[in-house]
């Protein structure tokens, strides 16, 4: 083993990298964190943190298209994947507009933020757990893959993740379409009480429940609504007594610490003032930016590191892993430190540690491995790229439901999260959206323009806007994409960014398993709208929607959910997976991968909570390995 300055080198300061950094530094390990984004974004002192964040907010206010990445700097030396770059791919002509090189036939539809703190800066914050069957899809339904461990063994790690993120939710509401399985364990409560569900949720739940049977492929299902756990601050639950996690050197395990008394949880406020963001204040802009940081972001975790053990190098883009020819151990990470975000000037350096952790998000992790010729003896690196392919349905309700208020979504319909139909087509979850039609058609701005163009003005216009805006209903059908080896990230020397790093080249399509799910979801959507007397305005545009697909003669449009998953899957054996159950690469003993790329299946929950849970598991394995 080489004599290294650092115990561990981590690439990326998103939630995955930050959790590892926090656990390791607090266990006394020396950590070097490499982060591609701009220096300003990492500021930990309150004044600087506030300044940077106000800068983001101001950029957001001034942005014409308020997409997820709009508040954050998109720098040429470390470009971010951006939904604004998604365009219709012409036959055999790759789309090269953005950072991704999209080979098609249809574009990958999600983005992430390459900035200190990573994508949780603009995530929504939904924190559902995966369901037990999601971990054994191959065994139960004959599709996808099995995880190398069952749901049950993740339960303590889920609790750690829920503590770290600060989940608000009601365990009692969590009824899933599964039988006899105890998801949460006796007496478990979330750190904070459920975020109040929206007025819209209340009206719609009542409407849906009046007539809640839908038929799909001759089978009857019952729709129902439950509140959604989420990573934003609410009223602390007095019955919650977990206070954190520590590394126990004796047992070589992470153990949860608990308070004797109750009332132990304190919501974590903003990074500049602990009293700001103590509660979600209903800014209704969680994606792309929570102005008060009531919503969790990874900088909150990073702030809890033992700073005396942490070195952070920003503006430092990892470009390659160096591999020792004989031992196959990783001997360094080559990284390029750029001067300012858009110059061509940079310096190449090598960081060395005992153990290396890639936490640069699923696409970037895979790309780095491919660029280094690392960890790929299974030929699975970059393959199995997944997302929730999201069908959107929108319409106008009879009575006002007053959307555009509160967090993005506070209620979901879990009916189709699990069931035998998964043998045939994908499962999905249906969050009710609190933000009107803003996602599919940029309402209400587009509604204003339509009305003005039609010649409306004055009181009539105002009344029309009131009529339309207050009755907009949107529901998602977030379909679980199943692994397909041909949906993949590759590299090509022809495509590099301006400081000579590879750009990810993406091949992407919707398999029949997914198309069938779109057909099924649309059937359910049609029944739901009819039964709830919602005037359907859903429209899929064959010409302008980049992710427009057809099945049995009918067209569908899907959107990305921001859930980038699967590109370095975990598995029980090295032939068909990249990492083992500890998230150590099979090929390099001192290389760990963290992030959603590890997940063999996606389930119907947003992936980050599960990913955070397995990241705790990975950190435990790293600590164990360091102390061997």
């Amino acid at each position, binding site marked *: 083993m080489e004599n290294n300055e650092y115990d561990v080198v981590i690439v990326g300061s998103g939630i995955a990298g930050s959790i590892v950094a926090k656990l390791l530094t607090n266990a006394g390990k020396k950590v070097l964190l490499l982060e591609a984004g701009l220096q300003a974004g990492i500021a930990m002192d309150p004044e600087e943190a506030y300044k940077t964040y106000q800068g983001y907010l101001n950029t957001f206010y001034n942005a014409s298209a308020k997409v997820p990445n709009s508040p954050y700097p998109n720098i040429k030396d470390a470009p971010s994947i951006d939904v604004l770059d998604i365009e219709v791919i012409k036959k055999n002509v790759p789309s090269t507009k953005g950072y991704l090189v999209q080979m098609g036939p249809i574009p990958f539809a999600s983005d992430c933020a390459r900035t200190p703190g990573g994508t949780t800066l603009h995530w929504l914050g939904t924190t559902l757990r995966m369901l037990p069957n999601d971990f054994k899809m191959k065994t139960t339904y004959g599709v996808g893959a099995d995880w190398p461990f069952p749901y049950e063994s993740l339960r303590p790690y889920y609790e750690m993740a829920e503590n770290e993120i600060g989940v608000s939710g009601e365990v009692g509401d969590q009824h899933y379409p599964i039988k006899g399985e105890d998801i949460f364990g006796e007496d478990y409560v979330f750190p904070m009480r459920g975020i109040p569900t929206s007025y819209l949720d209340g009206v719609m739940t009542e409407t849906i429940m009046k007539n809640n049977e839908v038929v799909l492929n001759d089978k009857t299902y019952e729709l129902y609504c439950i509140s959604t756990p989420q990573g934003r601050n609410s*009223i*602390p639950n007095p019955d919650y007594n977990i*206070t954190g996690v520590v590394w126990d050197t004796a047992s070589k395990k992470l153990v949860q610490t608990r308070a004797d008394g109750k009332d132990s949880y*304190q*919501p974590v406020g903003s990074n500049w003032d*602990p*009293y700001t963001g*103590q509660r979600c204040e209903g800014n209704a802009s969680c994606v792309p930016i929570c102005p008060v940081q009531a919503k969790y972001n990874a900088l909150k975790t990073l702030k809890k590191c033992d700073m005396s053990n942490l070195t952070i190098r920003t503006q430092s883009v990892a470009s390659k892993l160096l591999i020792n020819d004989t031992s196959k151990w990783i001997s360094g990470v080559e990284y390029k430190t750029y001067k300012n975000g858009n110059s061509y000037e940079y310096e190449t350096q090598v960081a060395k540690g005992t153990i290396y952790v890639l936490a640069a998000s699923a696409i970037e992790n895979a790309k780095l491995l491919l660029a280094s010729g690392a960890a790929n003896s299974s030929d699975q690196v970059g393959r199995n790229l997944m997302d929730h392919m999201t069908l959107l349905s929108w319409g106008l309700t009879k009575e006002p439901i007053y959307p555009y208020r509160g967090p993005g979504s506070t209620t979901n319909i879990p009916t189709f999260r699990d069931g035998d139909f998964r043998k045939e087509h994908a499962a999905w979850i249906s969050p009710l959206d609190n933000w009107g039609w803003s996602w599919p058609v940029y309402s209400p701005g587009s509604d204003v323009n339509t009305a003005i163009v039609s010649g409306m003005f004055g009181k009539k216009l105002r009344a029309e806007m009131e009529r339309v805006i207050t009755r907009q209903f949107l529901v998602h059908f977030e379909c679980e994409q199943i692994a397909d080896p041909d949906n993949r990230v590759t590299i090509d020397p022809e495509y590099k960014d301006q400081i000579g790093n590879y750009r990810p080249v993406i091949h992407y399509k919707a398999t029949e398993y997914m198309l069938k799910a779109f057909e099924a979801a649309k059937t359910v959507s049609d029944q739901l709208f009819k039964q709830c007397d919602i005037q359907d305005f859903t429209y899929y545009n064959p010409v302008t929607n980049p992710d427009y697909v057809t099945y049995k003669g009918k067209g569908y449009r899907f959107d990305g959910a921001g859930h980038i998953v699967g590109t370095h899957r975990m598995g029980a054996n090295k032939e068909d997976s990249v990492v083992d159950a500890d998230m150590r690469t099979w090929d390099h003993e001192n290389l760990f991968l963290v992030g959603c790329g590890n997940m063999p299946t996606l389930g119907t929950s947003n992936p980050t909570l599960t990913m955070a849970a397995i990241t705790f598991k990975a950190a435990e394995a790293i600590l164990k390995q360091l102390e061997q």
Partner: protein
Amino acid sequence: MENKLFQENNPKRQKLIRPLEETPEPAPAPKAFVETAGRVTAAPEVLKMSMVDVKNYIKDLPQLRACLLTALQLELSTIPPYLCALYTIKDGSSQQAAALVRSVAVEEMLHMVLVANILNAITDPKTIKEGELLFDVKNIIPNYPTPLPGNIVPKMPPGKPAFTVNLRKFSREAIDGFCTIERPSDPDESLTNPTAFDGIGQFYQAIRWGLKHMNEKAIREGNKNGIFTGDPKRQVTPEHYYGSGGKILKVENYEDAESAIEEIVGQGEGIDGTIAANEVMFGEGIEYAHYFKFQEIACGRMYSANDTNFQMPVKSIPTGKHFDVSWSSVFNMKENPKMKDYENNPPLLEKAKGFNRTYVQLLNNINRAVSGNPELLIEGITVMYDLKYKALELLNIPLGNGECAGPTFEYVDLL
């Protein structure tokens, strides 16, 4: 995760309250000074109440209750001036000052609730009529400019008129006024005529003695709970409050009541202005009293970890980090605006009324919350946000003489 900031036993929390001493004779001390940015004012002579009178001020339970209601009014009367200062700071300027004023305003809300908790704790539920509310919104709203309620008469420099509380834009004058409101008492000042309290701290000191005496008396008379016979369900509990320092305390006995007063006085005004020496008092994440927050704004400078040695009279000015305070990037709000000023402009008057309706709604809400529906406080906070947006709308409307309209904080009947 344990967060020190919220712990009531946080050692860094400044303790401005001392145990009640049975021997109140103070040692002679240097003359009081009030020192703000470079300007030293010799403290004027004022007739004050002697310590003994503070101790025996409250004679019976009805008077104690009346004093607590006055305390409620006192806390309430300071909120509108703080809000006016806060709202008139233009977006993006004087950020540090705005954050400090905001935190004080939020904490005054907390104090109101704490006083209500004490009051509810000593109110036998059998004496409460069905639907009866703790206070009368219409009569509790002061008419600005107003003296401090409760016979509190802070010292003023010689030749200056008696102190009043005003609705003013963010200005040096406003901050001076706030400093006076929150100024710690000087117990060492020699006393003569017992006519008035010299500060809020002294008034609370009287309440504290009153609680103690009445409670001991009740216990002597065989009531095992003393005067603390209130309905626990009328207590507002910690989860209903957030957004600044301090914590809501349930009050069920004398010790709780004392802690609640400690919270109020320690956070704001100070009973004797002594901060334990050789303890780090200022710096990130440490709470300190309102008076010192206003001193920081007046000086445009934070207290630093070295500014530890506070004794009344306050001699030391902050020596920490400078911050920008802009006295010009401010809405030029008319002083103590009234609805009748807007009578010749009906749409503006309607807007001012709209603001006041929201204000009254907020007070009604707080009133219902402290009258047995604590969960309503959460809704009240929603109204609080709305109040701000309505105030900003008024501030955007010019009056034509270089000044702009502003919120009047007057009572109006709700529709």
